[in-house]
Every structure is written in structure tokens, then in C-alpha cells.
């Protein structure tokens, strides 16, 4: 079974600064997806960014980028130019590409990001 670990329960960042959230995972598979979801106080789950394991290039979405290290099974999220609206819980998630292995998302425990004005 796959596991996802987020070792930082809470992080804080100054507005306009950069912060990196850590995520590691354990899997025996070679093909999979990795995601970062944001959950603001409204508790809506919002997809931030995704990465396919077969792609060497790190995914980027505006101020959000990832550092995907497949050998190390690490998938960190970097938020640049942090904004007050970035304050939320951030969940790292894993999904197998092998439909026989199940198609559900496995979530990490989450990191609460606080943004200081």
C-alpha cells in the first residue's frame, strides 16, 4: 500500500516571501500521479498542481512549482510571492496509474500554511 507523509504540520511565511512544503511517499510502483491540494477555511478541496511520475520536468502553475525527486520519493511544493489568500491546509496526494492497483487518492496528513502580513 502506498503511504504519503507530510512532516510539517504547520508552516508560516511572510507575505511576498517563498515557502516550501515537504512531501514524501512510499510506493513500489513506477507510474503514478502526484498532486497538491489546497483546503482553505471554506474546506473546499482545490487542486493546485499535478505531476506525472514519468515526466522529468517539474510542474509549474504560476506561483506554484514542485520539486519532484523520483528516486528520493519526494514531492515538495514551492509557493513564491506568498499571498494572504494562500493561507490554507495543503495536502499532498498520490494516485497510481495502474487501474488494477486502485484509482483512489491517498492523502498525506496535511500542512497548515499561515501567511503573515
Amino acid at each position: 500500500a502506498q503511504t504519503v507523509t507530510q512532516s510539517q504540520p504547520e508552516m508560516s511565511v511572510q507575505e511576498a516571501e517563498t515557502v516550501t512544503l515537504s512531501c514524501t511517499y512510499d510506493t513500489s510502483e513506477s507510474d503514478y500521479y502526484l498532486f497538491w491540494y489546497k483546503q482553505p477555511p471554506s474546506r473546499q478541496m482545490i487542486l493546485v498542481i499535478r505531476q506525472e511520475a514519468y515526466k522529468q520536468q517539474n510542474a509549474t502553475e504560476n506561483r506554484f512549482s514542485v520539486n519532484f525527486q523520483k528516486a528520493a520519493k519526494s514531492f515538495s511544493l514551492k509557493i513564491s510571492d506568498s499571498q494572504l489568500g494562500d493561507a490554507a491546509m495543503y495536502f499532498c496526494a498520490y494516485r497510481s496509474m495502474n487501474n488494477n492497483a486502485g484509482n483512489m487518492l491517498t492523502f498525506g496528513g496535511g500542512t497548515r500554511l499561515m501567511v503573515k502580513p
Partner: protein
Amino acid sequence: AAGVIQSPRHLIKEKRETATLKCYPIPRHDTVYWYQQGPGQDPQFLISFYEKMQSDKGSIPDRFSAQQFSDYHSELNMSSLELGDSALYFCASSGFGREAFFGQGTRLTVV
């Protein structure tokens, strides 16, 4: 763009009652997932459907059941409700790209 629609948004039930949560996935998405999120916890996978067939089962209690209908909407039926069932219940759907898009959730309170 159309999103995942869940109803109701809020539900209050008494212990031992029954609840039915509904989910309308994004059009042309072939997979529906149900997750339960307790206070301060990460979402826990309950069950999923692919093309109207149950595809995976997670930590779903025997008191719960779910199905996906011909129009692809899904319902989560919860019976003999317990206080510990109070949580936010998410439905999500995914298509070819495989990222899951979540609904706004149903907040169930059991009193």
C-alpha cells in the same frame, strides 16, 4: 466550467437515523470517489466507482453503502448513524487526466 455538485451542503441527523448524500460529477468524468474528513484530519477514502461499477473500497463502514446511477450521479447511504459519523463528506470525480476535482462537501452533524 461545471464542477462537482453535492447535496445537501449541510445535514443534521439524530443517532440511529439514516442519511443520503448525493453527488453529481463533472460531465464526461468516468470515476466518482467518496471521502470522509473528520475535524483536523486528512480525507479518508470510502469508496469509488468507475463507469457505474464499484472499483475500490476503503474504510467504509458496513452501515454505509453507495451506488452510481445510469446518469453517473452517485449516492452515499448511511444508516444507523453514530456520533462519530459527524464529518465533512466529499465527492470527487475524475476523467482521462486523472486529477480528481472535489465538490464543496456535505457537512453531516449527528446529534
